[in-house]
């Protein structure tokens, strides 16, 4: 087994016992990126020199007997919407093609402080708008399980690089499912934490009240380890919650006896692939066998989540993306006057999906429509939140498929935006309610991974980890790897 295939906790053991140096590890990942990425295209920026320098620094520290922490020396990568000082942060947009932030996101700082090695920046849907990574202006990220299929989105690069061992772990961002759905499509573990658990400072905003950063990892334990490093209150983010951050690994016990799991029936409506439903049903049986109490339940406003989400998210986006005007940074189209410059810069700098969402959001906020669309959506958001509150009076977690289908083919949905939006039905309610949810590998359909989503109360990430960990310990889906033989062979030629 190649070293790059190992989990973070395994790598930590190797580093601690000096069986491998961080430099060796970093080189191994860079080699893997060089051979796998020509086909997979997960990376937008590869930081070979910087990563090796960071690794060398780490190796000096460990040689001097310094405490390395649980993530020290571990090579990882960030979605390209998280700011990295001195390193291009493009959001996969022509608009920010040449943008080099003069500051670090809080997560960037925290992972650096934890001693991790930054391998590079990962592909995504432009400004995190999309469910397939097809909206990237720069690269076509492929699903390592089937190169004809999308990796999911918008954190496609983050999921693929973990699945294909191009990074030990990555961070993604999730506004309506953008961590969980690609994690499900690529067979990795993806956590969307409670809104306010991880600082958004330095995360280029898509929809401020919904965005949340989280880890994509090979195992549940790895996920908890990364959460330990990135979560917790941040004074630079006014929406960051001052809560007492637990040690998330404390929840990793192989025992779910007596836990109550609700199965919201609305998540199994039309549009859910019957094989996916069957796969999840098998997963539910496993949990029952392990002692969980499972019951069908109802979240009656689920069908309203998609329109509510798309109105709120696009409204916020229309405002968040106003600053891309060609004055202070990023792309500028030359024009005779400022108005012309604004209009042309934005017409040429943004891709079609971004423009579509800006149009929708601007409309939802515009005079005469605010009440009917934006305000209405916010009220419906309250109803959706109340559905969850009620369900959590009875259940510890709620369980559903992460996505209605396995990964789809390129171009299959991109022609019809509404159809693409509808595929987010299982993930967006969670963002509207601000609660945490995790996607874990739960089987395969036609050789493609499927994900099981566990949703919990606000700040109950620990409970999600407990169930996810128990499920993982009693299944072997997470140990299965995509066959990258041909990909690597091509890349190495």
């Amino acid at each position, binding site marked *: 087994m190649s070293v790059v295939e190992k989990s973070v906790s395994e790598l930590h053991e190797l580093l601690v016992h000096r069986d491998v140096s961080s430099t060796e590890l970093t080189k191994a990942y860079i080699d893997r990126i060089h051979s796998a990425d020509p086909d997979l295209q997960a990376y937008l920026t590869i930081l070979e020199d910087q990563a090796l320098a960071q690794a060398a620094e780490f190796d000096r520290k460990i040689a001097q007997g310094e405490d390395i922490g649980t993530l020290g020396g571990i090579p990882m990568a960030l979605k390209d919407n998280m700011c990295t000082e001195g390193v291009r942060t493009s959001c996969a947009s022509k608009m920010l093609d040449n943008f080099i932030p003069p500051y670090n996101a809080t997560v960037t700082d925290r992972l650096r402080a934890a001693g991790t090695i930054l391998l590079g920046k990962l592909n995504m849907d432009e400004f995190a708008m999309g469910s397939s990574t097809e909206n990237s202006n720069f690269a076509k990220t492929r699903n390592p399980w089937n190169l004809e299929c999308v990796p999911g989105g918008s954190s496609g690069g983050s999921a693929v690089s973990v699945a294909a061992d191009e990074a030990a772990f990555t961070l993604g961002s999730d506004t309506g499912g953008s961590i969980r759905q690609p994690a499900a499509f690529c067979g990795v573990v993806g956590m969307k934490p409670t809104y306010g658990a991880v600082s958004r*400072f330095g995360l*280029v905003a898509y929809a401020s009240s919904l965005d949340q950063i989280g880890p994509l990892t090979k195992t549940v334990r790895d996920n908890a380890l990364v959460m330990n490093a990135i979560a917790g209150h941040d004074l630079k983010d006014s929406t960051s919650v001052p809560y007492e951050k637990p040690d998330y690994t404390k929840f990793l016990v192989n025992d779910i006896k007596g836990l109550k799991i609700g199965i919201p029936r609305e998540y199994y409506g039309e549009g859910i692939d019957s094989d996916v439903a069957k796969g999840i049903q098998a997963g539910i049986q496993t949990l029952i066998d392990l002692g969980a109490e499972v019951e069908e339940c109802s979240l009656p406003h689920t069908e309203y989540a998609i329109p509510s989400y798309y109105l709120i998210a696009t409204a916020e986006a229309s405002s968040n993306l106003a600053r891309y005007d060609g004055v202070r940074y990023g792309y500028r189209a030359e024009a005779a006057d*400022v108005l012309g410059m604004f209009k042309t810069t934005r017409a040429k700098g943004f891709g079609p999906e971004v423009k579509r969402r800006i149009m929708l959001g601007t409309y939802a906020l515009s005079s005469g429509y605010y009440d009917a669309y*934006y305000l209405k959506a916010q009220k419906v958001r309250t109803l959706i939140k109340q559905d969850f509150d009620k369900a959590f009076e009875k259940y510890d977690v709620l369980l559903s498929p992460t996505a209605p289908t396995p990964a789809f083919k390129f171009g299959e949905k991109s022609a019809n935006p509404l159809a693409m939006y509808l595929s987010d039905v299982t993930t967006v309610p969670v963002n509207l309610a601000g609660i945490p949810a995790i996607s874990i590998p739960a089987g395969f359909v036609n050789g493609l991974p499927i994900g099981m989503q566990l949703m919990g109360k606000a700040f109950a990430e620990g409970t999600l980890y407990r169930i996810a960990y128990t499920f993982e310990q009693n299944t072997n889906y997470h140990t299965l790897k995509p066959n990258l033989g041909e990909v690597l062979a091509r890349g190495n030629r």
Partner: protein
Amino acid sequence: MVIADKYEMVCGLEVHVELQTKTKIFCGCTTEFGGEQNTHVCPVCLGLPGTLPVLNREVVNYAIKAGLALNCEIAEFSKFDRKNYFYPDLTKDYQTSQFDLPICGKGGLEIEVDGEKKWIGITRAHMEEDAGKLVHSGETITTSYESSVDYNRAGVPLLEIVSEPDMRSIPEVLAYLEQLVQILEYTEVSDCRMEQGSVRFDVNVSLRPIGATTFGIRTETKNLNSFSSVRRCLEYEVARQARVLDAGENVVQETRTWDEGKGITLTLRSKEEAHDYRYFPEPDLAPLVIDQEWVEGIRKTLPELPVARRARLQGLGLSAYDAGVITSGKAMADYFDTALSYYSDAKTLANWVMGDVTRLLNSNQCSVADSPISAKQLAELLELIDKGTISGKIAKSVLEEMYSTGKDAKIIVKEKGLAQISDEGALLGIIDSIIAANPQSVEDYRAGKDRAIGFLVGQIMKATKGQANPGLVNQLLKQKLS
């Protein structure tokens, strides 16, 4: 105001005032005026992708303080909203402001014009961020081929104070503004340095036929930065609107700009250009919950406000005019009050402060706050007059000496030997010699010409270089001649 006996003016004002915090509203950059362009900026106030605002507590404190001083209701629940519009001086292409739930609700203040008191309502006051500054290549925005942007001011905290359309004449408008600025200065919510743009005025004005009860169509002229601009702008705009109405046309509801050089207003935004600000709650900032304790804590820090202060000074015997002059600025009023704690004759004190002290300060272009003569020193000088140590006339020259040297009055009097000669023996000798030298005057006096004694006193004062105690001289001279 009645314009050509036909129209009445209706005016309301929006006043933007920079709050006197050390740092900007949402980041730690300094608010200091006059730095090199784009040196008081950071990722947050430059609106770089990914940055987030964190509200400065002091901005809220100042807003509450101003609100209390302006008799406003302080909202228990308040929030920020985004006002969306594109302009190169806005780093995010939206302004973080407050829309439907401002921190200060209804309030107002009393003005006095020609002895008539009138209440001017305040609709609301809200917190928001300032924009950057545009510098145009040409003379004006319209003749430029390009513009340069300095974001030092972007993010400086503002309080926007919106009045009711309660003002009916230019003097009322000016009285309101003077009163408002005075209160903001007194409460130290703002330094109100108009020459630095820390107070700016938007003027809403309309005309209506005399006797009408509904309002006419108004125009809004933005960004005036002095009282005199407001006055001239109103004079121009009222005359212009009257001409439009006289011609049987309608005033166009629009935003206008003031051309200071030409003294005219011009259309700024054409009507067809939409301004649909798409306000919505700022998702990056948590709302404010302001409890009684917070409000009362700030109320305790409120100084005596100008109206109360004027009343108190009038109670001490000052005329309304004098009380008004003394309280026109907080520095002057504070100077007066400090001196008053050492010297109790308010009337005399007022005469000196408004007279010689002000004259000295003005001729040296010095502010009261920076006066080299402290309030206590002035009080001591006045004590010397009352005790008869020096005459009022000598005191004036001592004051000048105090100004240039910073020394106490007593020391100057001593060093220069300026104390009055109140020694009868010494004075009698001088009196005798003056009587001997001026027999004609003595004769005149004895013949009943009272004026002659004045001449003799003058001669004695001259001989003593003004140091003789004039009362005593008078008394002794009369005794000698009788």
